[in-house]
């Protein structure tokens, strides 16, 4: 026996949550060829089918692209700080997230809590419930199975949805948060949701870790990264990339100290005040990205800093990404 709900029922639920003042976000078609995770305006916005995965990631609902830390007021020689609100965050429900997005949240939890407990992140995290839709398709950029995940990974999810066909989904609640959302809203069903196996394993992540640790100075990096354009698309659409910059936005931006996303692929990421740049060439930046994902983060926290979503490859203007590097390392 299992619990199930219709897609129409899910839309109605989403509308109820919205009416209760909650933020509900999920895949939305923005325009032809573009699906993104966005805050829903109505339950009908929600897109269940016909898309591999949204082109952004759910991290922006917990770690926004720009977030005011506090404001300030300059008066003569003195500066007065204006604390940001310490109110509880609006309850947020992320619905039909992909497993590769949900799995990124425990990864981010480590980063925002190991030496400093990041209140901004934690408050959002506590107020967020993640309802994941298991993947029934994959494309050539997907590689979750190569980093220890799969199309039905439960990691980071509070509840999972499995497509049963005929506009119905099986609901599997995994945490109290998930149960709170769906209790009394589902029907009994004798169908069990099943998803086909994900993409075939494309590389051995242990091999990548060994390679990146042992080949810091290797012509491979130079050859491989020659065509990288140095934009931040890979990092900004990645569910796990979490680097940020802190800047003081002047009067035009309302006198605030703001945290905003940053990317190790930018030339300015490591530039020192003196002008010296320890990563002055693009290959050093590409190497850093792979090193961080497969060696630095795993050394500290155990997991790989990658969920195999393939967003870097899909969004890269020239088709580079973790996958192509990892395959080259593994097969080369």
């Amino acid at each position, binding site marked *: 026996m299992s619990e199930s709900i219709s897609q129409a029922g899910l839309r109605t639920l989403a509308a109820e949550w919205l009416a209760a003042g909650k933020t509900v976000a999920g895949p939305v078609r923005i325009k032809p060829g*573009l699906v993104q995770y966005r805050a829903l305006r109505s339950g009908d916005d929600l897109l269940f089918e016909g898309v591999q995965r949204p082109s*952004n990631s759910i991290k922006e609902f917990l770690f926004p692209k720009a977030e005011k830390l506090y404001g300030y007021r300059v008066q003569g020689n003195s500066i007065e700080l204006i604390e940001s609100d310490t109110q509880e965050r609006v309850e947020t429900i992320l619905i039909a997230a992909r497993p590769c997005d949900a799995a990124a949240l425990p990864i981010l939890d480590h980063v925002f809590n190991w030496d400093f407990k990041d209140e901004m992140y934690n408050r959002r995290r506590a107020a967020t419930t993640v309802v994941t839709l298991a993947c029934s398709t994959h494309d050539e950029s997907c590689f979750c199975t190569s980093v220890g995940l799969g199309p039905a990974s439960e990691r980071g999810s509070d509840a999972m949805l499995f497509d049963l066909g005929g506009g119905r989904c099986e609901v599997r609640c995994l945490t109290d948060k998930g149960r709170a959302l769906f209790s009394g809203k589902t029907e009994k069903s004798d169908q069990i949701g099943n998803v086909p196996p994900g993409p075939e394993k494309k590389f051995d992540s242990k091999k990548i870790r060994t390679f990146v640790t042992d080949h810091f100075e290797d012509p491979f990096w130079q050859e491989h990264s020659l065509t990288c354009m140095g*934009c931040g*698309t890979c990092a900004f659409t990645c569910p796990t990339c979490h680097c940020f910059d802190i*800047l003081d936005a002047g009067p035009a*931006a309302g006198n605030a100290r703001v945290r*905003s996303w940053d990317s190790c692929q930018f030339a300015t990421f490591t530039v020192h005040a003196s002008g010296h740049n320890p990563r002055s060439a693009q290959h050093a930046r590409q190497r850093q990205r792979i090193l961080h994902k497969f060696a630095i983060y795993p050394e500290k926290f155990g997991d790989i800093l990658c969920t195999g979503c393939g967003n870097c490859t899909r969004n890269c*203007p*020239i088709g580079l990404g973790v996958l192509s590097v990892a395959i080259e390392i593994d097969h080369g």
Partner: protein
Amino acid sequence: MSETSTFEPKIVAYVCNWCTYLGADLAGTTRLEYPPNVRIVRLPCTGRIDFNLIVKAFEIGADAVLVSGCHPGDCHYTAGNYHARRRWILFRELLDTLGFDLRRIHFTWISAAEGRKWQQVVTNITEETRALGPYTDLYAAGTFKDVPSPVNNRNGLRSFAAQNDLREHCRKLLAENAVKVVIGYGVSGPIVVTKPEDADRLVWNNHCYANLTAYLKRKEIKALGKPAIVVKPCDEKSLVVLEKESQLERQDIYAVGMACEGVGEPKCATCQARTPRFADVSLGQPAGPEPPPSPSPNRFATLMAMPPAQRMAFWTSEFERCVKCYACRQVCPMCYCERCIVDRNRPIEIDPAPSTKGNFAWQIARAFHLAGRCIGCGECSRACPAGIDLALLNVSLHIAAQKNFVFEAGIDPKADEVIGSYALQDKEDFIR
């Protein structure tokens, strides 16, 4: 008391040091009265006024902006005001496309002897702005008519006949040491080939989207030695602009031009350039466009048919998705500054955060730096992970350059650049 009657407009006036500032000074010393709503910012010359300043004034709460300098022929630096006039012509068109209220942006010539004109201009602008009310439409969200998306006709992979010629030609170039490196297309994207035996990795098919001339600016590529670069007839125009701007010596680049059958990008449906004109060699035969050749709906006309406030609402909603990954800048062959204005932080000129203001300021700067330089390859739109139709802004400036100066970038190597040159008869109908 109603709000309009208590509303006092804030007006920022950027004036040149030599004429208008002295004109304002004269107005003061001759005891001419004018409304105190104007804040004067003195700059050396109108030719030196950064267009970002106009935007910035609105950002910090100005209800109207006035820019004023010496009359034509009177410039202390001979031609600063002529250069300024030309830039204003284009900049107004960009702001119009973005939905700025042009009734709040004023340009004028006021000489050192025209204290009375200063008095009148400031009085008039204050009254006009008072009638318009506070500028609340700036970057405001709202409803707007949908602008259709550009149509891609991307089809399944189809190799073009000239692929073999391309491989042979590049193999020879490398074997004879005519070039050190070939920048071309590979199976999954651009590749860099340095050995003759690797020339077979090059492909030529309907998935060759990228404009490879963007690699010419990258120092990692420059370090490899003389490059051969595979160009489509649309892409090669950037070589003309880059050479004009002294970014390359044409003999240091070997351009392998490919007669193009179309790659299914929106630009392909209306493409006029199927055969290379500026390349060192032209391979293959041009055929018709990728089927079916359905041209994109005229997005620009749809956009401009909306009232300004709706246009701004449209852009506000588009830019909301911008994450400032700078893919638009990185893939642009014309964005070659070593340190981009948005990366400068002493002082911060453009808010680097992906906020509404920061995104507008960035996109305005990006588009206007490409005024009269953009060759229309559409890479900015193609690269944008948020699907923002950035090329629309470039289209607006392209049309403005054609309309006002009969100029198209990358077509005529002998033509003067639009920005950086001027003509005495440039239009003035918008200047008081």
